[in-house]
């Protein structure tokens, strides 16, 4: 079993594995994410970040091992506790912004009409698209679609939010705005799990897991990981390469 850092970890993964036919995507991965922080899964393309996130949101069943979310085994009952923003914007392009967000609010069982309408308005304002709420999603730019996708993921106020490469294709200004939203969410107590392959995103996270070939090769705060290299001016790219080399040596 995973040795618990806190009795109330947001995510506990214990020796989970997943294969796509003969390719090992996740290999006996063990991980624990404390509550209320932004946790980054950092690694190159093909490292297994998206597969891990799909396992954590219940889309893929691990071939072996165990996954617990907020202290509970992953079942359909835990689905309302989770918010998920996939890599693609994943929106209904014919529908307007407000119709998309309202649909996901209803799917996530927000039954009270008045409360739902209030929350839908709140999240659309949060992503700064209220003026365009009646526009079809197909008329929006890539960055706007990402913002709508974020609104759909957080509309039901989930305590645990998975964001799969949320800033891919965004300009630096919008990326900054996104991270401001994410910081606000963690201040409110939401646990964020963000996958990324960019060092810029990684620097915003409270803790990081560096992934390669379906395993976690190192974990820690960005500063801890940089310090481990022994270099004064090291950045996270240096840290990643340092741990890759260390892993290769140990193999």
């Amino acid at each position: 079993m995973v040795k618990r850092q806190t009795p109330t970890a947001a995510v506990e993964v214990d020796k989970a594995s997943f294969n796509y036919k003969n390719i090992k995507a996740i290999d006996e991965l063990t991980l624990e994410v404390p509550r209320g922080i932004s946790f980054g899964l950092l690694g190159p393309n093909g490292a297994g970040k998206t597969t891990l996130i799909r396992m954590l949101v219940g889309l893929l069943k691990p071939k072996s091992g165990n996954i617990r979310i907020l202290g509970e085994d992953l079942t359909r009952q835990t689905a309302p506790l989770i918010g998920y923003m996939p890599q693609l914007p994943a929106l209904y392009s014919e529908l307007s912004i407000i119709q998309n967000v309202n649909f996901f609010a209803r799917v996530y069982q927000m039954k009270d009409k008045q409360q739902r309408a209030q929350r839908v308005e709140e999240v659309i304002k949060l992503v700064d698209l209220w003026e365009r709420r009646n526009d079809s999603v197909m008329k929006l730019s890539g960055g706007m679609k990402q913002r709508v996708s974020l609104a759909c993921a957080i509309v039901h106020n989930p305590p645990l939010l998975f964001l799969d490469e949320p800033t891919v294709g965004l300009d630096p200004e919008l990326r900054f705005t996104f991270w401001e939203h994410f910081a606000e969410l963690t201040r409110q107590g939401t646990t964020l799990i963000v996958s990324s392959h960019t060092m810029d995103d990684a620097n915003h996270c409270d803790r990081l897991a560096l992934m390669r070939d379906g395993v976690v090769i190192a974990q820690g705060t960005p500063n801890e990981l940089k310090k481990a290299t022994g270099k004064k001016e090291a950045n996270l790219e240096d840290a990643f390469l340092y741990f890759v080399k260390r892993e290769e040596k140990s193999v």
Partner: protein
Amino acid sequence: MFNQVSTIAGRVILQLLRDRRTMVLLILVPLVIASIVGVSIPEKQMLDYIAPAVLAVLILFFGFILTGISFLRERSQGTLERLMASPASKGDVVGGYLLGFLLFAVLQTMILFFYLIYVLDVSFAGALWQIIVFQIIIGILAVCLGIFISVFARNEFQMVQFIPLIILPQVFLCGLLWPVSQMPEYLQWIAKFLPLTYGVDGIRALMLDGQSLLDIGKEIGVLAGYAAGLMVLASLTLRRGAAS
């Protein structure tokens, strides 16, 4: 459960209503096809024989293509994956699609029915509500078939290729133009395994012979059996496609 189904159905309906061009085509195309059938068959007796079958064929065709392409887009755009990560179950998704598309199936049937009867002067001996109920059964079959087949397509072009493979053989062998009993024996055998054959037999019994739903229990049973089997297959394959 029903709450999720109605939410998904509402979204499916809203999506189609907002796509005005598709809505216009959904109404116009069956009327154009019915008109072509009407003017190309001058003999009234022959038209009376073919027109009910056109109702069954069109509902299967449009149900299949609409659901297939909609579902394919759900998969390729990632919305199905998002839905599968939510509290909605596979059954909710299939149920939502069924409910959503059946509304259009009923609408299409009624428009086509009144056009055949009042514009093309096709004879009619049954009850409209029974025809609608029977058309809904064919519609359910079409929706389940569309969802299931969409698993095997990766884009719209591939999905369209399934029409000649899945729909056309049924159209040729269902008895639309000439009775199944007059076909070679081996074709009659194949026709026995195709659901549209029972769809066409059933709708002819209702419209031409004035029979009731109770008289066509065999046809309803076979269609319901196919629909149930496809619904199970569609539900089972739902996550596979969503995650791929």
